[in-house]
C-alpha cells in the first residue's frame, strides 16, 4: 500500500527531525550558563525594538498615517515571524560556517536531504528571547488597537506569521546558495540582510520615500512580511504600493518565494564542488 508507506515515511521523518532537535537542545543544555545567556542575548538583541515601542507609545500619536498600536502590530508580526524563522531556519544564514567547517560533506554522507540537515544542525536558544519580545510586543499592540477579531483575521494572522517566516527563509536560502560556491563571500551579506529586514520590517513603509518603499516591496520583499498583513488586519491601505487583493494574498508570497529559493538551492547543491584539495 503506497499510501500507507508514504504516511509511515512522513511520520518517521517528523520523529527523526524531532529527535535531532531534542538532541541539539540537549547539547546546548550541557552548558547551562550559556543556555541562559543565549536567551538573554535574544531578548537584548531585540531591546532596540522595545525602546522604539516605548518611545512610540509615550511620545507620538502615530507614524505615517498609522496609529501607534498599528505600528506595534507591524513590529510584532515581523518579530513573531522572525521567531518562527529562527526556530525552523536559523541555520540557513550560517551555511558558510557549516561549509567551511567541512560539516556539509558529512551531511552528504547521510541518507537525509542536505537542506533538512542544515536547518536541523543546531538549535539557537536566543530564538526564545525573540519569541518573548515578540509576544510582549504583540500583547501591547492588541491592548492599544480596538480590533475586532473575526475567525478570518485570526487565520490570516497565523498565515501571515508563517508566510513572513518563509519570506525570510526564502531570502536567506537564496543568498546562502553563494555559500555553496564561495563560503567566505557570504558571511557579511547574511548579517547585512538580517539587519535590513529587522530595521525596515518594523515600520509602515509609507513613511519612506517612494523609491525605497518600492525597493522594499518589489525587490527585497520586506513589505510582505508584516507591513501588508498588518494593513489587512487594521484596514490601513493608504500608502501601500500594491492593491488590496495583493495585500490579502501576502501570506502566499512566502510559500511561492520559498519554493523558488529551494529549487535554486538544490540546483546549486548538485553543483557543489567541495572545499580544499
Amino acid at each position, binding site marked *: 500500500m503506497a499510501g500507507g508507506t508514504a504516511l509511515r515515511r512522513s511520520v518517521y521523518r517528523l520523529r527523526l527531525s524531532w529527535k535531532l532537535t531534542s538532541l541539539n537542545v*540537549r*547539547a546546548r543544555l550541557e552548558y547551562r550558563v550559556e543556555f541562559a545567556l543565549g536567551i538573554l542575548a535574544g531578548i537584548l538583541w531585540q531591546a532596540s525594538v522595545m525602546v522604539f515601542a516605548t518611545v512610540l507609545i509615550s511620545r507620538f500619536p502615530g507614524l505615517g498615517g498609522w496609529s501607534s498600536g498599528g505600528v506595534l502590530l507591524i513590529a510584532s508580526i515581523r518579530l513573531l515571524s522572525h521567531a518562527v524563522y529562527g526556530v525552523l531556519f536559523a541555520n540557513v544564514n550560517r551555511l558558510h560556517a557549516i561549509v567551511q567547517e*567541512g560539516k556539509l560533506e558529512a551531511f*552528504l*554522507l*547521510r541518507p537525509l536531504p542536505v537542506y533538512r540537515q542544515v536547518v536541523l544542525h543546531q538549535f539557537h536558544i536566543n530564538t526564545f528571547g525573540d519569541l518573548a519580545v515578540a509576544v510582549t510586543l504583540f500583547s501591547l499592540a492588541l491592548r492599544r488597537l480596538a480590533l475586532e477579531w473575526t475567525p478570518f483575521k485570526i487565520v490570516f494572522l497565523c498565515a501571515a506569521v508563517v508566510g513572513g517566516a518563509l519570506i525570510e527563509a526564502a531570502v536567506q536560502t537564496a543568498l546562502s546558495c553563494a555559500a555553496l560556491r564561495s563560503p567566505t563571500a557570504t558571511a557579511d551579506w547574511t548579517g547585512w540582510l538580517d539587519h535590513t529586514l529587522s530595521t525596515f520590517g518594523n515600520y509602515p513603509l509609507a513613511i519612506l520615500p517612494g523609491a525605497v518603499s518600492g525597493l522594499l516591496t518589489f525587490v527585497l520583499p520586506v513589505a510582505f512580511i508584516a507591513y501588508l498583513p498588518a494593513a489587512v488586519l487594521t484596514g490601513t491601505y493608504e500608502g501601500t504600493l500594491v492593491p488590496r487583493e495583493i495585500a490579502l494574498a501576502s501570506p502566499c508570497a512566502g510559500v511561492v518565494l520559498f519554493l523558488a529559493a529551494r529549487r535554486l538551492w538544490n540546483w546549486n547543491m548538485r553543483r557543489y564542488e567541495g572545499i580544499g*584539495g
Partner: protein
Amino acid sequence: MNSKSVPVIAERLTKTFRVAHRSAGFMGGVRAIFRPTWEYKPVVRGVSLSVQPGELVALLGPNGAGKSTTIKMLTGIVAPTTGSVRLCGLDPHRNREENARNIGAVFGQRSQLWWDLPARDSLVMLRDIFEVPAGEYRERLRQFDDMLELSRFWDTRVRHLSLGQRVRCDLAAALLHDPAVLFLDEPTIGMDVLVKEQVREFLRHQVAEDGKAVLLTTHDMKEVEHLAERIILINDGEEMFEGGVAALRSRFGATWKVHVTLSDAVGHPRLAHARIVAREGARVTFGPRPEASAPLGHALKEIINAYPVSDVSTEEDSLEDIMRTYLGGAAAARQSASGGSRMAAR
C-alpha cells in the same frame, strides 16, 4: 562479474576545477572582479580503480596529488567532470541518499559526532538516521566495544576525547549501519602506537571477517605494509602505479643490502643478482646489480649458495624510503617540465 558485485568501480575519472585567476596587486584584484580570467585546474586526470569485497586498497600519493578529490568523487560528495563511478551498482552522486546507506567514511581530521554530547548519544542518533534495527545495533556495538574498548570513554563528551578515542568512536559511527564499503582518509593520524595497532587489528577484522571493501589513504607507510593487499599510487592526478607492495618495490627500484661474514677466504664468483659493494676483511656487503634490480630473496639464496657464510643480515628499503625516492624524482621531473594548466580568457 557484474557491476553490482564489485563494491567500488571507477573508470577514467577526471575532475577539473575552474578557478578565477587573479594577477598580483590591487589592480589585478579589481580586474578579476570585472573581467575574470578563468583557469582550469585538472586535479584528477583519468584515475581508474576497483575494490573487491574483503579487500583493502591503499590510495597513496603526495599532498595535492588528487587523493581527497578522488575520494570525494567516489563517495558522491562531488560529481566527476568525466568518467564514471559505480558503488554497489549505484551512481553515488545521483543516488546520494541511497548510496549513503552502502558506505561509511572516516575522515581523520574531522568528526561526524555531536561535539557537545557523549559519543554514545551520537551513535544512538546515527542508529535512528540509518534505521538500524535495535537488535543489530546492540550486537554491533558490543562487537565494536570488544575490539576498540569504546565503553571506557563513550560516556564522555566528544570535545573532551583524545584524538585516538574520538577516531575510534568515529569508526564505530561509520560502521554502525554495516556498509559494504568503507572509506578512510588518514584514520590513524596522530595516534599513539598501541591505539594504532588496535585500530589496524579492527580494520583487518572488518576486511577479513566481514568482507568489507576498504579504501584507505594514509601517509603512514607502516600501515600500508600491514594492511594493504594492493596499492594505487597517484601523483598530479594521474595513476602512477597499481599493484602489490612487492611489485611496487621492484618497479621503483627499491634497494637492499646483504651483510655477510665469510668463514673461508674464497674467490669472488660473479653472481647474477648481486654484486659486492663493500669489503672489510671477512665482512662483505652485497647490493643489487645496477642493470637489474632483483628481489632480495633471490639474491640472498644466490649469495648463500656461492659463499661459505658464517653470519648474515639483511637491510631493505622501507616503503617510506621508496616513496621518498619516488616522490623526490617526481618533484624534480615536474620542475623541469612546463606548467600543466591551461588558461582561457572569458
